[in-house]
């Protein structure tokens, strides 16, 4: 039997980057932009934080680090990096009306290349003999959990044993869900994604909403990359380690039928599926089965995708204008 007290925290830790990624992508998609560049953005978010903290750690070599700065510098770098990616995507698709799929794929190529290039370069600078950079000091700040978490038994372990970025992800998801449902901004954003022409006629600045939503979405997704390196991976960056989580985050958006609050639980569920192979018994002779178990999140997503398209319920469909660009004079 699986040891739930050990399993759940690991599932949650796996789920947090996905939660960031899918929440960011949901915001973006609500504006009608299908950003397939999210995997690249998450790499950029991660590596930008790493670059920031790498130089901060270097500058403090030997001396003590300031906790606030140790968090703020990578955080700011990460947000800036992914903001620039968001601006790039918005400029190409909104201002220049480029094809969204192609732009997104190019951003993913670029972003992953960017991450691995600077990752590789830093590894070289640091002169490490393993192909990774360890920022354990910074990571210490990021993954610090509540001091009394350890004394609360299973409850503390399951709910209180994470760094602040994990809770931030939940807060951001809840906040996003609230904004979608209960604010004018959310209403306007949804209308831009459903029918930009209608929104435009109602006096809503479609371009602005698309830009802002895409940029905020990218920044949130970028935090997923940052969390992954600083907390989950204990400050160790190695190239390609982030893997395909970005694509999984995009898949998760469908799984959650564009609802960030559902995203919280589904991210954890996906996180669980992602690492389930570690817990399912295979026996020593059949290690290969683990690879099949790793298929689970993708198969589940595919099934959900099929079911939602079969049910064809209005509320569960993607934003109507998703993937298309808006040009007022084109009717």
């Amino acid at each position, binding site marked *: 039997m699986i040891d739930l007290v050990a399993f759940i925290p690991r599932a949650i830790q796996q789920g947090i980057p996905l939660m960031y990624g899918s929440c960011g992508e949901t915001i973006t998609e609500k504006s009608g932009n299908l950003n397939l560049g999210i995997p690249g953005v998450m790499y950029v978010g991660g590596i930008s934080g790493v670059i920031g903290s790498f130089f901060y750690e270097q500058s403090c070599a030997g001396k003590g680090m300031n906790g606030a700065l140790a968090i703020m510098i990578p955080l700011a770098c990460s947000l800036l990096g992914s903001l620039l990616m968001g601006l790039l995507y918005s400029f190409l698709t909104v201002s220049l009306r480029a094809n969204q799929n192609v732009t997104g794929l190019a951003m993913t190529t670029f972003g992953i290349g960017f991450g691995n290039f600077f990752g590789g370069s830093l590894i070289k600078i640091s002169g490490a003999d393993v192909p990774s950079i360890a920022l354990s000091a910074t990571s210490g700040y990021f993954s610090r959990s509540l001091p009394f978490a350890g004394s609360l038994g299973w409850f503390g372990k399951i709910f209180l044993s994470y760094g602040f970025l994990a809770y931030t992800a939940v807060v951001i998801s809840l906040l996003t869900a609230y904004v979608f449902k209960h*604010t*004018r901004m959310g*209403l306007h954003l*949804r209308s831009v994604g459903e*029918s930009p022409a*209608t*929104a435009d*006629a*109602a006096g809503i600045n479609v371009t602005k909403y698309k830009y802002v939503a895409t940029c905020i979405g990218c920044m949130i997704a970028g935090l997923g990359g940052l969390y992954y390196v600083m907390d989950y991976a204990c400050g160790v960056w190695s190239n390609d380690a982030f893997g395909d989580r970005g694509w999984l985050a995009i898949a998760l958006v469908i799984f959650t039928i564009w609802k960030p609050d559902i995203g919280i639980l589904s991210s954890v569920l996906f996180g669980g599926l992602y690492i389930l192979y570690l817990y399912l018994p295979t026996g020593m002779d059949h290690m290969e089965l683990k690879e099949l178990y790793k298929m689970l999140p993708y198969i589940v997503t595919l099934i959900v995708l099929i079911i939602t398209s079969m049910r064809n319920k*209005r509320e569960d469909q993607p934003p109507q204008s998703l993937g298309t660009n808006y040009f007022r004079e084109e009717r």
Partner: protein
Amino acid sequence: MSEAAVSFRRVTKTFGSVIANSNINLDIKKGEILSLLGENGSGKTTLMNMLAGIYYPDSGQIYINDEPVIIKSPKDAFDLGIGMVHQHFKLIDVLTTAENIVLGLEGRLNLKDTEKKIKEICDKYGFEVDPQKKIYDLSVSEKQTVEIVKVLYRGAEILILDEPTAVLTPQETEKLFKVMRNMKADGKSIIIITHKLHEVKAISDRVAILRKGEFIGDMITSESNEEQMTQMMVARHLFLNIDRKKPVNVKPRIEVKGLTVKDPAGIYKLKDVSFTANSGEVLGIAGISGCGQKELLESIAGLQKVESGSVLYKPDDKEPVDLIGKDPRQIHEMGISLSFVPEDRLGMGLVGNMDLADNMMLRSFRSGKSKLFTDRKTPRELAKTVVRDLEVITPSIETPVRRLSGGNVQKVLLGREISSHPKVLMTAYAVRGLDINSSYTIYDLINKQKEGGTAVIYVGEDLDVLLELADRILVLCDGEVSGIVDAETTDKNTLGLLMTKKGGAA
């Protein structure tokens, strides 16, 4: 001057080389209902779009309450108290009525307050609206109501309604007019765009007439009659002089029996429709738009899912066959030559991005000797023939059809459809948006087909044309046949009555 709510002064708007509005001077007084009358393409909607901030005039000036204003976006228009209800509703399906009504406004979102305010407006003017219903659950007339409430919610003093009755049943129209009178009593100025004369008479205080983008004149409705209005609208007296020959060699060709069609939402689009279309005869189909004309033609063409009923095709020498349940390809393969000029020319009848030659083989590309390859020579020859015979103006036959003008697009489409010497020819709004000359070319082509023994089904919106072109006219009202009349012995009034009266005695 002081009583003018809106004044247009020397307003001109062009689109490329087309002059939509030329030097328009027009006043709308406070607290009046003004009808803006004109044929299709006379520039009514363009003019109003400038007031609503959709377009910006090339030159000239608009005044609101004698103040010169600049309206460069719909938001500017709202701020000036102008609200327009467009023909195509600008509503978002997955949002609720209340959400749609407050869309684009600023400040904190408080749907409770909104709902209260909506209720106040409804009570004041006599609307019925459920603020919590999703738009996709609403009927067309309910959607229109939402649009009007939306405009009032923004505090509009000047309302523009663009052909509001085109989609309404007579009862709904009456209800709308009642609301409009309430709004007028409340001091609001209302402009209603229409081309239905009896509605102009019924609702408006004054009528202004546009023709080909120019302001022709205005008059007090109660002091004018329909004859005068029509004359101003069309400039010449209504004798179209379409050369209609007596039908010869008339034989039943298409027999429709009990045809019933429902849309995906389960609403009846056609209900128990039965009629016969004969060879050598033009059967006109009249009705308010959206009364099942599209579904009727598409059912015959094999494009529509049919609930029940049959469409029998009767060849000269063989047993009749039922076309229901067959797709266009199967109908073609059965050797039935059935041509169809759909309403949506570039979205259905032609491929806008393909050139003339490729479009010629759209319906026939499967024929030709080779099983694998398309025959490219025959369509090219056909394209050349069509261009020559119908005088299509195009740079070359390699030009994408979307770059041709509306009339030329229609000639290409009709040219292709009649090139197969069809036994049955169906056309939907064949002259919509076309100038007079192109229209006459189309009428001639249709008459030639008829004389050649084709059964023609002509769906039209211009009653004068229907009366002169068709031999018999079938009138649809709300998906039902409200009458089939002989075109030579009937008049516009009878048709108009049938169009608005369900199952009326013919």
